[in-house]
């Protein structure tokens, strides 16, 4: 019965939820996470600007890992399979997602890609997100680690302009450090901005081209992977 006039029309009922909603498909993200844990695959969501050197960093990582074939990569781009071809040439398994109009990857796309990718004896899965400092920050893909790749050529103020992305990062890799003598980039200023947005993140100075910082990057990955394996209950 209506509370207002008794007309017989039931008044709407209010359902209280007070729950946090995540972008995209939360169930798919959890499904992926469980899949990675079951297969003991350390999954890394690699985000960053187009041209920051995400693929170059992956190529350099694959070549230095104890066995390149133990790395698998899901590549996300609006168009072309150029990046997955580069990854295969470097020696790892790759699967390309062309997002078309999509500006980010979501967990359901990763789930479908996993059906096309043999995970078998892999140590790590990198998911190279669509080059974009905005949208990918909001989407949980089921990964264990989120890494943002940015470069000295982009200038020092990107962390302030795109806070959610830098806030999401467990590790921020500053690529193209070999260019520092040639570009107007102030490292201390950039570091202040990164830590203003995300006081807990780890910063790695690197150059995928020269190899600078690759040792630290690999040892961070290896350490975090060991923690993941320990947490999932398997021996390293």
């Amino acid at each position, binding site marked *: 019965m209506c509370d207002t006039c008794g007309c017989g*029309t*039931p008044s*709407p*009922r*209010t*359902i*209280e*939820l*007070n*729950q*946090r*909603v*995540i*972008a*995209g*498909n*939360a169930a798919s993200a959890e499904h992926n996470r469980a899949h990675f844990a079951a297969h003991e695959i350390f999954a890394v969501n690699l985000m960053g600007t187009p041209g920051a050197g995400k693929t170059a960093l992956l190529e350099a990582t694959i070549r230095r890992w104890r066995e390149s074939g133990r790395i698998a990569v899901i590549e996300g781009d609006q168009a072309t399979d150029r990046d997955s071809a580069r990854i295969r040439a470097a020696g790892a398994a790759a699967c390309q997602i062309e997002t078309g109009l999509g*500006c*980010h990857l*979501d967990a359901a796309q990763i789930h479908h890609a996993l059906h096309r990718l043999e995970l078998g004896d892999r140590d790590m899965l990198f998911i190279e997100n669509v080059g974009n400092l*905005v*949208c990918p*920050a*909001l*989407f949980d893909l089921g990964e264990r680690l989120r890494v943002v790749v940015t470069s000295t050529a982009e200038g020092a103020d990107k962390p*302030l302009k795109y*806070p*959610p992305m830098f*806030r999401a990062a467990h590790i921020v890799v500053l690529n193209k450090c070999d260019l520092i003598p040639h570009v107007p980039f102030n490292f201390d200023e950039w570091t*202040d*901005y990164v*830590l*203003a*947005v995300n*006081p*807990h993140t780890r910063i790695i100075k690197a150059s995928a081209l020269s190899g600078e910082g690759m040792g630290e990057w690999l040892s961070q990955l290896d350490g975090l992977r060991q923690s993941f394996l320990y947490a999932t209950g398997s021996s390293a």
Partner: protein
Amino acid sequence: MHELSVARGLLAAIERNLKPGDARVVRVSVSVGSAAGIALDSLRLAFRVIAEGTRIDGAELSITALPARSRCTGCGILFEFGGMIGHCPSCGRLGGELLSGDELILRTFEVADV
């Protein structure tokens, strides 16, 4: 335009809580933190488009914008701010540890039987 996916997540959360007898949803209340990176107008548009043909079609989306809260990494005080990043009102330091404000919360929804 990630708001389309945000709206999809919102719709899925509502649908999980709908009962077979709920004919339609007339109102949805959400809170969005200022540091969430969600454009409210885009969310409204996306919500309307996504809801078409569902029991949520035509529901009013009521959005409460929430300020964000940070702990200053310089002097340690808690402070509120609007937008993505703020300055500590006490020592002037930029940023800090974000405690809240990056969230989208589905508060309530109202259902009608007819």
